[in-house]
């Protein structure tokens, strides 16, 4: 392991009520986060959610409007970037085009008075890890996208920082390379053991790479949890709709009864009540939202199940098919079925919502606590 940090203190990152405004626009509206030493955390959200601004604030590239940032027990809120003991990888790599790979990696070090022997050792080590040793004499222009990305990461590695910040590092690569680099990044994190924060709008990257994911929405933390937590226990409508592809189906519903540890509700357009196990006791007078993931929505014969609709579109992906089914009121639900499901466009079908797989959100969009099957529960608590 090439562990980095200069001091003995653990590189916990603590962010307290961080605010950032650009003129009249509030981009970050009070972010609180605690990231553990050695953790791989992703900032995930749609464009404009503030994820890059949050990362740049940690890097010291933005002046905060309010709040504090602590790294490894030090208050780094007002420290210049260079003294925060961090390294950053930029979306477009930000390689110095007129310098060769070696110089790109060593430039910052040599200007900070590091001895040549130590610089050479670090560059050689990073180049070895990233398999770019034979590219050291080349200019960025002479490298492929993936190689440039490696150099950008190498430039971060040689600094041996406490914290790695990666701003959408794979978004400029083609799809195939992205998958390869994703695996390499995971291996790199394993090897270095350094805390890494990774900004992305791609939920697959966030889910596959991270220990925990921060889902950001309009400058606020919508949920901070493990990938499976986000998927199985989304805290609110935003996370429920954002995580998972195709996205979760939502139906407006109203509460028809409340029992011991369960509620009964009736979704609009459904023929029967659904009893869902939850300890919550929401206000029966206010509407709720029923959510069901496409892979749990079952296509059954017409007249069976709770809903009836018309198939609009069958997307055949081979291993699975995505059925887009329009209800009488125009709402379109998506169901994932097996690749050979016989349904075709214009077919009338029934839809069944298994009560155990339903998500319920109260009138404020917050999820009601839900019970999971034991296997999933075990996975989440691991």
């Amino acid at each position: 392991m090439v562990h980095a940090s200069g001091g003995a203190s653990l590189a916990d990152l603590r962010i307290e009520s961080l605010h950032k405004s650009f003129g009249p626009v509030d981009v970050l509206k009070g972010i609180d986060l605690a990231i553990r030493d050695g953790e791989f955390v992703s900032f995930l959200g749609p464009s404009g959610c503030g994820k890059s601004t949050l990362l740049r604030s940690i890097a010291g590239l933005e002046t905060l409007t309010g709040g504090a940032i602590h790294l490894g027990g030090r208050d780094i809120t007002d420290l210049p970037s260079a003294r925060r003991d961090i390294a950053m990888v930029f979306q477009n790599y930000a390689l110095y085009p007129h310098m060769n790979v070696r110089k790109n990696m060593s430039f910052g070090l040599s200007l900070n008075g590091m001895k040549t022997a130590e610089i050479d050792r670090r560059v050689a080590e990073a180049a070895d890890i990233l398999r770019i040793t034979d590219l050291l004499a080349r200019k960025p222009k002479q490298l492929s996208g993936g190689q440039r990305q490696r150099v950008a990461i190498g430039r971060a590695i040689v600094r041996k920082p406490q914290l790695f910040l990666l701003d959408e590092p794979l978004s400029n690569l083609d799809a195939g390379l992205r998958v390869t680099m994703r695996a390499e990044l995971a291996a790199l994190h394993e090897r270095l053991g350094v805390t890494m924060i990774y900004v992305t709008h791609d939920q697959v990257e966030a889910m596959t790479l991270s220990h925990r994911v921060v889902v950001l929405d309009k400058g606020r933390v919508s949920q901070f949890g493990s990938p499976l937590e986000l998927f199985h226990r989304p805290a609110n409508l935003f996370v429920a709709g954002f995580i998972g592809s195709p996205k979760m189906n939502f139906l407006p519903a109203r509460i028809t009864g409340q029992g011991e540890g369960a509620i009964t509700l009736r979704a609009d357009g459904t023929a029967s009540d659904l009893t869902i196990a939850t300890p919550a006791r929401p206000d029966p007078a206010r509407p709720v939202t029923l959510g069901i993931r496409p892979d749990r929505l079952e296509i059954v014969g017409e007249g069976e199940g709770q809903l009836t609709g018309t198939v609009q579109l069958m997307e055949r992906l081979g291993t699975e098919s995505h059925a887009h089914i329009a209800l009488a009121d125009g709402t379109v639900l998506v169901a994932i079925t097996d690749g050979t499901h016989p349904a075709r466009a214009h077919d009338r079908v029934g839809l069944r919502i298994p009560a155990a797989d339903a998500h319920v959100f109260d009138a404020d969009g917050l999820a009601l606590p839900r019970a999971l099957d034991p296997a999933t529960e075990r996975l989440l608590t691991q």
Partner: protein
Amino acid sequence: MASQPAVTRPSRRKARGAGIAPWLFISPWILGFLFFTLGPLAFSFVMSLHDWPVVGQRTFVGLDNYRVMFLHDPQFWTSLGITVKFAALFVPLNIVLSFLLAVLLNLNLKGTPIYRTAFYLPSVISGVALVTIWSWLYSKEYGLLNYLLSFAGIDGPNWLGDTGWSIVAITIASLWGLGGSMLIFLAGLQSVPKELYEAARVSGVPAWAQVVHITLPMLSPMLLFTFITSIISAFQQLTIALLLTKGGPVGSTYFFAMYIYDNAFKFHDMGYAAAMSWVMFLIIMALSMLVMRWSSAWVYYEGEVRKDGDHA
């Protein structure tokens, strides 16, 4: 996709056999270049081989004009020396000042568009108007410049009447037109990706090193361009000296270009003036080639990929 070549082939064939039409379109430029640039250029070389009074008999003299110039005309050497001295003052100052101004304007301070316009404005003012303004500014008794200096307790020099100050005065007036190079630098600065500076900041690269190791290399093509065009304009300096000092006092601003002008239009010795012009052309070309050759050591072109891969 398969049908595409069938669609494009006829149009390609048409383009290849288009005949005279494209030539007609570029003919105004080609004719202009032939008659007003290349023609006079070649003609001036022929003139330089003649004793060519404006009126009267022309005689072929071979390289005699050049021989006289180099061996028997001290004024040629003096005026060339003055021009070199001016270039030595003007070229570095023009580059440094326009670069610094561009850096200042690139800070995106309030009112940047106003300053940008203000700094560029002198470049579009006609030379004669510019000289008139400067002759007022420089006036020893009533000039604004010395008036302002008097506030600082400085007894301003006789800008245009002192042999030591006259060339300085002309240099300053010439620098007034640095808006052009400033705009080129500004465009260059704005095209440097800001992530390069951010990456440098995160790596702890100090601000001065960011300028030296990022800004200057990224702007090196603009520096080279400005360097060469400044040399050319310095050697061709005529208007300001002609109107502001008329070469004086005591010939202290008698530039090479002015000597050519006098030979042609005062002494009516076209052949000699043409020969001098060719000497000036060769000097400028030699200097430009020197700079170009040297530039491969410090100019970085974005699109260029070198075989050896490294000169950093």
